């Protein structure tokens, strides 16, 4: 049991500094504005996903656009003609990172109002938030509570 405690403490000690420094995920965020599709790709809020491949497919899986992100992680293109389905943007950010974003057909054909843009940006900021240390510790605590519950139930059974 002693080594389990040591392993658990090691896990917590390792995750605290690393979380502050590095915890983030790959994100692609896209929206429609003035007949264009704009996308922003990043690893969290600070590190932009530059020179990454973006593939755009329709619901039938046909690739209708392929491009690269610029040094700021941005990529934009004109809405292709004759679109009749939702579009799926896949960001392939190398070394095992990929993320998707779906743009519905309604969004493609509707004209966005001025109110839509702040809402969209709010969504983006929410996505870019790094995982908080409190949430990570809560997650680990839940795993151990479940393990203790399983131990209790198994003991009761036997």
């Amino acid at each position: 049991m002693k080594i389990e405690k040591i392993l658990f403490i090691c896990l917590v000690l390792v995750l605290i500094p690393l979380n502050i420094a590095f915890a983030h995920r790959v994100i692609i965020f896209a929206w429609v504005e003035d007949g264009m599709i704009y996308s922003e790709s990043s690893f969290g809020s600070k590190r932009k996903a530059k020179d990454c491949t973006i593939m755009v497919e329709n619901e039938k899986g046909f690739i209708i656009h392929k491009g690269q992100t610029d040094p700021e992680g941005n990529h934009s293109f004109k809405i292709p003609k004759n679109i009749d389905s939702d579009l799926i943007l896949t960001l392939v950010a190398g070394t095992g990172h990929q993320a998707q974003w779906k743009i519905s057909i309604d969004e493609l054909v509707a004209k966005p109002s001025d109110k839509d843009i702040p809402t969209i940006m709010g969504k983006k900021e929410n996505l870019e938030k790094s995982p908080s240390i409190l949430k990570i510790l809560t997650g680990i605590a839940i795993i151990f509570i479940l393990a203790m519950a399983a131990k209790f139930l198994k003991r009761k059974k036997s």
Partner: protein
Amino acid sequence: MHISEGVLSGPVLATGAVIALAGTYIGLKKIDYDHIVHVAILASAFFVASLIHVNIGPASVHLILNGIVGLLLGFAAIPAILTALLLQAVFFQYGGLTTLGVNVVVMAVPAVLAHYLFLPLLGKSSTLTFTAGFLAGLFSILFSSILLGLALWFTNQNFFETSLVIITAYIPVMIIEGIVTGFCVAFLLKVYPEIIPVKKK
């Protein structure tokens, strides 16, 4: 490696959920009382691994650790990975709740296979132990990326090119994960052999 919501078709999501549920049931049945804490520790490591990204050059890499989780836990890896993925989805919006079943299958099935393929090699010699760990880590990511590609391909055959690009992008992770798993297994075998199931036999 998490598949986001809204990408996969209904039948693929349903199949993933059914396989994940069946696997979880078997996994829960197979967890023995004395190893519940090991399951919790490895589930926690898996839960945290995806959150820690290390910048290497222009790229950003994170571990997945399904290889070592599977190697050490066998079928018990399925409920461990399910719990970790569920918490990642709820707390950090990694993947999603509708894709949870598919994500569990993608990451846990290769883990369980790694257990049966590479566990017999552990403990025979230090070189063989490291090699088994390396292969378990590498194989798990390779097979997971193939399953991820298949999930996209079953959704639509035209996703083939995307699937291939995704599998290719995972090659560096396979090698890194293999090395990390190799070292971890060799270290655990020295300091805490009880965690390796083969040592109990």
